[in-house]
């Protein structure tokens, strides 16, 4: 307005003759017709095919072993035992034996897997207190309402860690044993740390502050809290071997707390420690057994438990889907390209539609 007033004159209100205001900005206007899109189609088809083949070759070099131990081997009895909740406190160990026919080269990852366990239920997922997990005293004493009804035990003590996620932690433990050719049994060494994201271990999960050097440092820090309902031991006694892996920064807890996206999921349990023979190259061929401390009941949700041993590629675990997806898409594009070529050949070749 002010500008208009400023330049008074006979043509004061004449609009500016600028490309923008006159909607004449230089523009690229692609026409989607057969002859313009065909090159693109062919290029994409070739690209997808090539990528697909490459990915496929990569995936072929990985190895994976899945072992459902729910009722396998001697775990039958434990499975039956866990059906009844009243036996929850009774320990139960079992062993599953399996062979490895082709050596696992490189880093081998040891996962435990659950089927049909809905960690992604909305109410379940929300049932946690992140502020408690970073060790805030306030939330330690009075957990967030999201944790309800797992925020306090029947005595009114706040639960640490609160919520359904922590409460339902997967509490089987495994020992992998290699039965060598000479009948020797070697415990396969597994790294039980370094399983989590760096940020989880160092930022997202922190223990509450405690006085260094005080008697019973961890219990002290968690004083006045109760263990979750289903737990056998308090959070500060999760790892009896490594005192620094206790409390909220226990790696198994952290791994569990990262809620899986699907009802069938696996979670990292350990990574092969390749410092000693015969595991420097990976897992050698031979017979293996897993000794399982069988605690986690799966009958209630008709679930299965499994152990997964796998090597990985640069784009993740063994998954044939992606290369196939590339190949199929590439094939489809090629098919459409051919159809378009026919169309172009028959109808659109000499710009017939121009004349219409």
């Amino acid at each position, binding site marked *: 307005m002010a500008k208009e007033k400023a330049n008074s004159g006979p043509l004061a209100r004449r609009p500016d003759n600028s490309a923008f205001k006159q*909607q004449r900005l230089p523009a690229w206007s692609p026409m989607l017709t057969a002859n313009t899109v065909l090159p693109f189609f062919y290029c994409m088809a070739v690209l997808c095919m090539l990528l697909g083949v490459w990915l496929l070759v990569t995936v072929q070099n990985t190895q994976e072993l899945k072992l459902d131990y729910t009722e396998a081997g001697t775990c039958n009895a434990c499975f039956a035992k866990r059906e009844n909740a009243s036996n929850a406190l009774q320990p139960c160990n079992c062993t599953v034996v399996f062979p490895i026919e082709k050596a696992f080269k490189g880093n081998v990852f040891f996962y435990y897997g659950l089927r049909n366990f809905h960690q992604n239920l909305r109410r379940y997922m929300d049932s946690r207190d992140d502020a408690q997990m970073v060790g805030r005293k306030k939330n330690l004493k009075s957990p967030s309402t999201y944790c309800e009804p797992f925020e306090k035990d029947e005595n009114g003590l706040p639960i640490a860690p609160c919520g359904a996620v922590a409460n339902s932690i997967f509490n089987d433990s495994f020992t992998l044993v290699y039965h060598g050719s000479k009948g020797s049994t070697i415990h396969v060494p597994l790294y039980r740390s370094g399983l989590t994201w760096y940020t989880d271990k160092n930022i997202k999960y922190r223990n509450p502050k405690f006085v260094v050097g005080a008697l019973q440092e961890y219990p002290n820090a968690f004083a006045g809290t109760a263990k979750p309902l289903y737990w056998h031991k308090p959070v500060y006694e999760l790892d009896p071997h490594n005192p620094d892996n206790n409390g909220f920064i226990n790696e198994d807890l952290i791994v569990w707390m990262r809620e899986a996206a699907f009802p069938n999921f696996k979670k990292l349990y350990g990574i092969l420690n390749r410092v000693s023979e015969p595991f420097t190259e990976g897992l050698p061929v031979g017979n293996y057994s897993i000794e399982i401390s069988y605690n986690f009941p799966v009958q209630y949700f008709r679930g299965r438990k499994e152990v997964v041993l796998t090597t990985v590629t640069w784009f993740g675990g063994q998954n044939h889907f992606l290369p196939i997806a590339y190949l199929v898409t590439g094939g489809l594009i090629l098919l459409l390209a051919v159809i378009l070529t026919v169309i172009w050949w028959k109808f659109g070749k000499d710009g017939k539609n121009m004349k219409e």
Partner: protein
Amino acid sequence: GVGEKDTETLGKFEAENGLWREENPNRHYANNKIKTTKYTLLSFLPKNLFEQFHRFANVYFVFIALLNFVPVVNAFQPELALAPVVFILSVTAIKDLWEDYRRHRSDKEINHMDCLVYSRLERRYVERYWKEVRVGDFIRLRCNEILPADVLLLSSSDPDRLCHIETATLDGETNLKQRQVVRSFFDLVRPLLFYNSIIECEKPNNDLNRFRGYIIHRNGRRDGLYKENLLLRGCTIRNTEEAVGIVIYAGHETKAMLNNNGPRYKRSKLERQMNVDVFWCVIILLVMCLFAAVGHGLWMFQYGDKRPVFDVLSPEGTDLSPILSAIYLFLTMIIVFQVLIPISLFVSIEIVKICQVYFIHQDMDLYDEETDSHLQCRALNITEDLGQMQYIFSDKTGTLTENKMVFRRCTVAGVEYSHDANARRLAMYQEMDSEEEECMSHGGTLTRRDSVTSHQSARVVLRSQSTKSHRRTGSRAEAKRASILSKHTAFSSPMEKDITPDPQLLDKVNECSSQLDFMRFHSQPMSQLPSDLSDIIDFFIALTICNTVVVSSPNQPRQKVRMRFELKSPVKTIEDFIKRFTPSRLTSGSNSSSSSSLITNRSSNRGCSSVLSSPSAESTLTKLDEERPARGLEHAFSPVPPNYEGKTWAAEEGELRYEAESPDEAALVYAARAYKCSLVGRLPDQVTVELPHLGKLSFELLHTLGFDSTRKRMSVVVRHPLTDQITVYTKGADSVIMDLIKPPSTDNSKGKRQRKIVYRTQNYLNLYAADGLRTLCIAKKILTKEEYACWLQRHLEAETAIQGREELLFESALRLETNLQLLGATGIEDRLQDGVPETIASLRKAGLQIWVLTGDKQETAINIAYACKLLEPEEEILTLNADSQEACALLLEESLHYIQAKFLCTSTDQAAKTFHSEFAAFDIYPSSPPSSSSHTSPFTVHRLGLVIDGRTLAYALDKNLEDKFLAVARSCRSVLCCRSTPLQKSMVVKLVRNKLKVMTLAIGDGANDVSMIQVADVGVGISGQEGMQAVMASDFALPRFQYLQKLLLVHGHWCYSRLANMILYFFYKNAMFVALIFWYQFYCGFSGSAMIDQWYLIFFNLMFSAFPQLITGTLDKDVSAETLQQLPQLYMNGQNSEEYKPYMFWMNMIDAFYQSLVCFFLPYFAYADSDVDLFTWGTPITTLALFTILLHLGIETKTWTWMNWASITFSIALFFTVALCYNASCPTCYSPSNPYWTMQRLLQDPLFYMLCVITPLAALLPRYFYRACQGTLFPSPVQVGRQLDKLPSETRRNILSLSRVKVGAQLGPKPPFLSLLKPFPKDYNHKDQKSFSNSKTAQGCQGPVLQMDNVGKSHQKGQSSPLGVTHSKKGLSDPYTFVSTEIDTLPYTKEAPGHTGESQPPSTKDSDCLDKTLDPSDLSLSSWITSTPLLTQGDSVQVTLPPAGGSQCVTYKRNSEETPGLDHTVRPTRRTEEQLANCSKDHSLQTTL
């Protein structure tokens, strides 16, 4: 009635006790402070929120946000869920706040303007702010001041007690208006201080043209107050040094403020359509939620009593039953899926519309240099409706035409003066124009250049473009200059001003006035003048004085020319009358007049002031002696005020400016001036006219009975200074004046002469009308003193009446205007605006039905319709003129039958014949010549024109008949409603709109179009010369009609296709996004969890994907503006709603469905069986969805400017930036979700990138393929248009000219003239070198109505001219015979309502006389070329040029035969019968041939 509003006491402030000093007695009335703001600081929040919650969507979103606070159903962090709603609400609130602040500032500015208010304390006028002005204050106003309030004018420095105001700010009219001092204060020197009166007036209202009230003086006398006494707020005082008034209405009670209503809100068709789909979205949403709820219930149920560990109990620790949790889940899902009903859709649409409005505003092509105005969008939210119009209802005057009235020709006392030179002059303007145009346009340049070899042929070219010439006013440069020069005076372009007089008439005027002068000198009675001469002089006097034109001189802008010859003011009382008109006085008066006339300088030398005392000077003098001793005798004796020395007078005389209220008046005054009868001064009580030889004559103006649309005439009552008779001059529409003519006595010669004049004038009137000229009749009446006294008595009663004053005055006027004596008639040309025919042609090609609703008479309207190509020559025209309801019903019935017969049966000939023989009341013109009707060209329903007059329309709009009327009207290509009232206009629009369910656009320029404009879906006002009322009521205001083409075809199309595509895209986008979450429900036990983080979910629409679609919605151009204008057929795209059809919504939904499946399952399988956590998996999906959605937009985007690229880049960058920041900011803040460091991890994950490539590719493959196939196999017209865009401009032009028919055929009915193009070259090539464009033009203006005499004519032609014979032969052999008939057109043969062919025995004497008068105009060929009405055919001229003699003789014959036909047009009803008789006769002739 008169409400008791204002009871106030004047002069109380004189009281010494000071009681009134503190307290204004009127303090309880509104003060003058205006406050247009809606809010105060305190009320803003609640009030604004309340207003915003009127929109249902807002309530819905708030409801959802609040739902989040309920723990059992919440899905997101409650505060976060509030964010979008708060964002949307606050954006709107900020916008409102800003607007309100602007209003506040302007209010403040206005409130603090200064004015002079009488201070009761200081007893003088002091400066005050406007806001301190109160009702009852006295205000002193100086020249050029703006009025602060509605003020009753009590005193003026003007000696006539007048005050001039300019009302441009109120109604846009730039001419000055006079306001009078309240009558009882007329003679007061210091009126204010010694009066104690009470004013009573009506309650404040918004009618600018009404004010009633009275003032009660202390002595109990009441004086009426009228709108002439009221000065309105916002007007500017002009030409008056000082005025004093009392404030009547202040502040918000002023009429200007009451008239001030804000912009209008309409809902566009697209939005209505969209709302249906929003509704569908709601249904989809509910279905999805229900599905999820049931699924969840079942999922819960399958676990039975044993609850799995992950099934969390309710907060109270109790089990939730499956049913209860399903119900909770339903609510949760509504929150999660809320994105499906896009909160940002409404905001986005509003933003896009504002941008569209901005661009329309900025369009240079819609800017008019002459008036320095551009298009205004007054309604902000119906831009896309412009692209969907189906019916256009147009006013004629001022809309299609320029409303620049140019005096064209006249007839006086039954003699026609054709004003050839004037016509040539007008042609000059056109020539300049067409030359200018030639330089610019490409088409047809060559041929025209060829023909500019000789002057003669150049002239021919000019004529050959008759349509073009008809529409042009003056060259653009000329007009520009004029508009700059005469910025302040309307209707005064050179073309309107400089009228070339007809030499013959000029001679007569000179002769007449010299005789008069002689007679006056010799004191002979004036009645001795030959009656034809006296008629002439009366005619011009009437032209000069019978108006309300104000004279001003340009040297001192807005300074009124004040030439006061002392006269008595108008008769105001009966005593006054008796005083002045008693015989004794009269004799003395006449004595003095004769003596004073002796004083008059005979030669009227301008050097010495031409003194002319009016006959009543003596009486005035005596009266002055009694009443106004202050004014010295010298005043009375020296009529010319001293400051008007002869010198200045002479210098200025030529440049006097006329400020007229209507352009017709100005045109007539300028015309009279051309004959040296100039209006030199106008005062309320006298008009001064300068006549040749006679010098200045002052007419005592006794009364002015203003123009009104019911009477359709105006009159002035004057005392003629020469004859001293009381004379009434009346000017008005011929239809009314002709009925008021005194029936001439049959016996004496005078009566015969009178009858002849009436009869001839009527003939000429018909001819004028046929030329498309506006006709006005001029009549006079001489009153005897007794008659006058009798009338005056009642008139004064009426004037002083308070109740029903208007009605009484109306009746009084009716009593006066009877038994008139016809003087003559004028033909004023209202020229078509630039580009009107082209605009109409291309709008019609665009599939728009154009109806013209006009108040003009039928013939004028039909001719204009031909000129602007509304009616095409090959069209048949149905004319409906009925006298009664029954007749109308019958007519409609038969029209329907006729149409059915005509277009269903193949044998059209037969149908027409039976039709004609059967129905007598029905007036139909078979327009197609016989050979054409036998010609089997398939007539579409559209090849019909319907003409209906106001009366018939009134019957047709009756409840019982409206359906039939519509049935007839909709099968006609064009409809022309003549003589329709404003109410009828709006009824027609309403009827069509409601019954046919079509989109209507009404365009008009005047107050009479307001109702129509308001009723239509889109109202367009022409911001022309007729004020602002239409503009105020309109949604869009255009400077010119031709801009409608670009507005509709380009901007309408763009706005529609942009918005339609954007809305569809919006639905797609949201559905696609929401479906992702829906698929996930199958994997999470239908528990309502979402893998997409709540932030992304909430801000996806609002931020991440918002900008590209806004840019595309604002800037995308599917076809370039040039192509859109060259191929108007593309407009049908919008009419048929092809961009947004119901199925498209569902197609988009299916596509969204598919794409979401791809976007969901590719990542799903890629991550299946892995240790991925929810958000590490969900974030890639969000990213992929964003990419897919943006690429989808890319496929749908037709033009890529840098802004598109920038916006897409920005969107992606914004998403990643927000994601990275969000994921890095706080590990605990966003519970329940916690996506800490997710994005950062993802960016290191090669799988993420691999997915980013494959997923959008797979998702968009079908759409991309479909688009490519569509573009190749079955391109839509719009796509063809786009392909044309890409070609180089020359190739494009070639293709366009070739492909037009094909594209047209593809889209709808063939463009009418294209099919005719081909036969022309072969028919014409041998005899003229014109390209088609000329023949086309010629054809375009050919009138089929008038063609019934084709056969006969070509027959005669064959006898008279050998060339004609060959033509008619050729014509008969050729299927396109009408070509040959056109050739024969001659002036006035075709244009006359043509029942020429087989004539009745004429009254030979009359027709001979007429021929004689017509003779001169036919003498030379070149003269009739220029003097012919503008509608004649160019081709006709070319062909008949060589055998000039022969054609002339034919012309003669034509004319003589034509007269009897014209004879019958005097009485319309009789006429139709006669015409029908003619018709059927013609028809039988045709069939026999």
